[in-house]
């Protein structure tokens, strides 16, 4: 048979072509049919699945609170210690609990006492790291009580970063007095109008050595020029630029300027670069040679730029004669010209401050070294009508003629108006027992949108070994940047009994001040204060929940396939409201679905749920 076909094909010249055409046609037909059949199969499958889907709404009920949200990670123990258990043990009310014991989170056991420092940012913008703050403490009483060395060597400033203690450089002014000033630099930003209480003053260590007191770590800039004489200070990297004429040198541990023709004559503190914030400048100044006249001028300068030439900026300066103290906007305008009588060969302090350069306002005051700084500014005025400057370089202003000026102990620090305020907490001793732990709680805002929350509740179930000590629940307030209980329904704390106790508070309508954007609430439990008992507490349950006026829907999948619910309808006589949803229910399962944004009234309504396959389940409330 095959031989016959082959023979015929060989014989028939058109045979091959016919076969090819037939084959191609067959292929085409197969492709068409397969395509249609396969697609038809898919759609039939979809229809079949739709027919076998069977979802029901079994219950609809009002809910007034969410489920409890436990901590997301282990509690942070700020004071005291963890004895046993984990945070998982505090997620449910059962026999499992986590235990903590009072103690003290003490920086250095060589120090007997401490006081907490709270820094309050008084401006409506963030306070940057590195701001120099001052806290005032009565060291005279501490010295007389033998709690502090008279030289202040055991007066230390320490910062608690949340995980580590960091000892800070500090400058102590007027040691062993009733109003000793202790200066140090902030280690973290402080939110607008917020506060930071992670700083401490430690003291009483009779064998304390020299404290860290490098002023360059206390202020933005400090230089006492205590180094070898140098004919040209611009050879130093930190002062590498001078503008105009004149010579700048180091002589007998001071900065010396001998003026010459030029304008503006400046020594730029290049080590600081551009200072893009308000600053306060303080320097000691002594003029030993003064020709007088317009070219005689010396002082401080900031906001320097290159317009019209490098070194141009705002200045506070002695000028013209020995009874003038003026403000100048270089090469643009003279500002307020004040009066201050000063003498040659006498050391003075000069303080120069510019807040908001765009305002063209400046302040300068001068007082003789050895006298008390006056409260009032000698000149509190403006820089004239010249174009305002922006932030820029800072430095010294030298004379435009052959005057000789000495500068010493330049001190520059960031400035806000008003400045941050500081306060000291009560004295704590090393043996004091405290417990302070905090946890992070995250609210599920996909189920309970923030806009529908009424308040947040905090509840703890705990057992204390000391029935004489109160405990407080506090939350981190993002406005004040600290743990407080302001606005809570109860701020009186809780005195435990001998067994397990429940202690709950709610944050009333102030909850929004305690919840962060990602709906995180930081909650702390803390004892009422120092005491002699080393109390132990067992925490069985610690959680937060939200109070809402919402609705709980219960769905049951009675079909043989997993269902995907995509729409929820709540309709009544006046409105048909649709809500997006995204819930999967396995075959045979029931699922409860809570919506904080749906509040069902007592009026008749119909609830309808739609699946992705297009099926609908309905429940009517007559």
């Amino acid at each position, binding site marked *: 048979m095959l031989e016959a076909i082959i023979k015929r094909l060989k014989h028939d010249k058109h045979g091959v072509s016919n076969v090819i055409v037939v084959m191609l046609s067959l292929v085409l037909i197969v492709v068409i049919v397969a395509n249609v059949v396969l697609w038809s199969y898919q759609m039939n499958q979809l229809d079949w699945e739709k027919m076998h889907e069977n979802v029901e709404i079994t219950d609809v009920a009002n809910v007034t609170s969410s489920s409890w949200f436990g901590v997301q990670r282990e509690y942070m123990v700020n004071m005291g210690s963890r004895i046993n258990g984990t945070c998982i043990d505090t997620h449910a009310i059962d026999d499992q609990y986590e235990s903590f014991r009072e103690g003290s989170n003490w920086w250095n056991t060589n120090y007997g006492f401490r006081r907490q420092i709270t820094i309050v940012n008084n401006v409506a913008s963030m306070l940057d790291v590195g701001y120099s703050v001052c806290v005032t403490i009565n060291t005279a009483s501490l010295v007389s009580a033998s709690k502090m060395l008279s030289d202040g060597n055991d007066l230390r400033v320490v910062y608690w970063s949340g995980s580590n203690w960091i000892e800070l450089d500090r400058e102590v002014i007027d040691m062993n007095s009733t109003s000793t000033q202790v200066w140090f630099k902030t280690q973290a930003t402080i939110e607008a109008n917020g506060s930071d209480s992670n700083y401490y003053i430690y003291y009483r260590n009779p064998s304390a050595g020299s404290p860290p007191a490098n002023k360059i770590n206390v202020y933005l800039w400090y230089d006492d020029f205590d180094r070898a004489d140098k004919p040209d200070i611009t050879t130093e990297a930190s002062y590498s630029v001078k503008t105009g004429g004149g010579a700048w040198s180091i002589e007998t541990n001071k900065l010396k300027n001998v003026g010459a023709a030029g304008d503006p004559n400046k020594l730029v503190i290049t080590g600081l670069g551009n200072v893009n914030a308000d600053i306060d400048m303080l320097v000691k100044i002594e003029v030993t040679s003064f020709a007088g006249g317009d070219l005689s001028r010396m002082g401080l300068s900031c906001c320097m730029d290159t317009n019209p030439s490098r070194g141009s900026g705002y200045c506070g300066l002695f000028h013209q004669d020995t009874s003038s103290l003026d403000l100048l906007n270089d090469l643009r305008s003279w500002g307020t010209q004040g009066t201050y009588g000063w003498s040659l060969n006498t050391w003075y302090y000069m303080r120069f401050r510019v807040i908001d350069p765009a305002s063209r306002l400046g302040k300068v005051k001068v007082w003789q070294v050895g006298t008390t700084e006056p409260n009032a500014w000698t000149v509190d005025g403006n820089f004239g009508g010249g174009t305002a400057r922006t932030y820029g370089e800072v430095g010294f202003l030298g004379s435009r003629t052959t005057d000789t000026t000495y500068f010493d102990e330049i001190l520059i620090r960031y400035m806000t108006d008003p400045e941050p305020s500081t306060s000291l907490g009560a004295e704590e001793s090393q043996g004091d027992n405290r417990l302070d732990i905090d946890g992070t709680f995250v609210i599920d805002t996909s189920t309970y949108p923030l806009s529908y929350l009424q308040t947040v509740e905090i509840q703890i179930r705990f057992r204390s070994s000391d029935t004489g000590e109160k405990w407080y629940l506090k939350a981190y307030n993002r406005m004040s940047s600290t743990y407080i209980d302001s606005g809570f329904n109860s701020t009186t704390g809780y005195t435990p009994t001998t067994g397990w106790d429940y202690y709950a508070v709610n944050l009333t309508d102030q909850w929004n001040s305690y919840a962060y954007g990602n709906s995180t609430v930081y909650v702390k439990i803390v004892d009422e204060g120092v005491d002699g008992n080393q109390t132990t507490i067992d925490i069985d349950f610690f959680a937060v929940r939200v109070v809402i006026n919402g609705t709980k829907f219960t769905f049951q999948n009675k079909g043989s396939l997993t269902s995907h619910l995509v729409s929820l309808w709540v309709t009544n*006589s006046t409105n048909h409201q649709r809500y997006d949803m995204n819930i999967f229910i396995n075959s045979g399962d029931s699922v409860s679905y809570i919506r904080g944004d749906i509040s069902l009234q007592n009026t008749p309504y119909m609830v309808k749920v739609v699946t992705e396959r297009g099926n609908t389940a309905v429940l009517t409330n007559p």
Partner: protein
Amino acid sequence: MAVKLRKFLRDKRAITPVLSNLLLTVVAVAAMALATTATYVITTNLRENMSERVIVEDLWFNNSTGNINVYLRNIGKVAIHVSAAYINHTSQPFNSPFNLEIGAHGWLNISYSWASGSLYYVDIVTNRGTHVGGYYKAP
């Protein structure tokens, strides 16, 4: 080679078979291209018609507007375009153009003055001829 070329040039009939074969090839290719294109178009239309699935999630006799609002969801495998909306078999204006991509959903607003307590047959038709709707009684 030269001999073959001379023979080909001397043969007066040689050019005819070549041309006929070429023409046949061109015709065959063109026919197949036409058949393939037709197949593609036919199967695509067929497939799209088969793939259209639309459901009415909700139908609202809206008191505040006096219109009928139909919430449609495209659960098929092809985008849809609503070409007509009929109330009691009479075409009614709606917010045209109304298109729904795959998985999309939205309100189709039919301008129609309905009467409370009346029964209406609502029929939404896509441009491929799919109908969706049914009888609805106004509250």
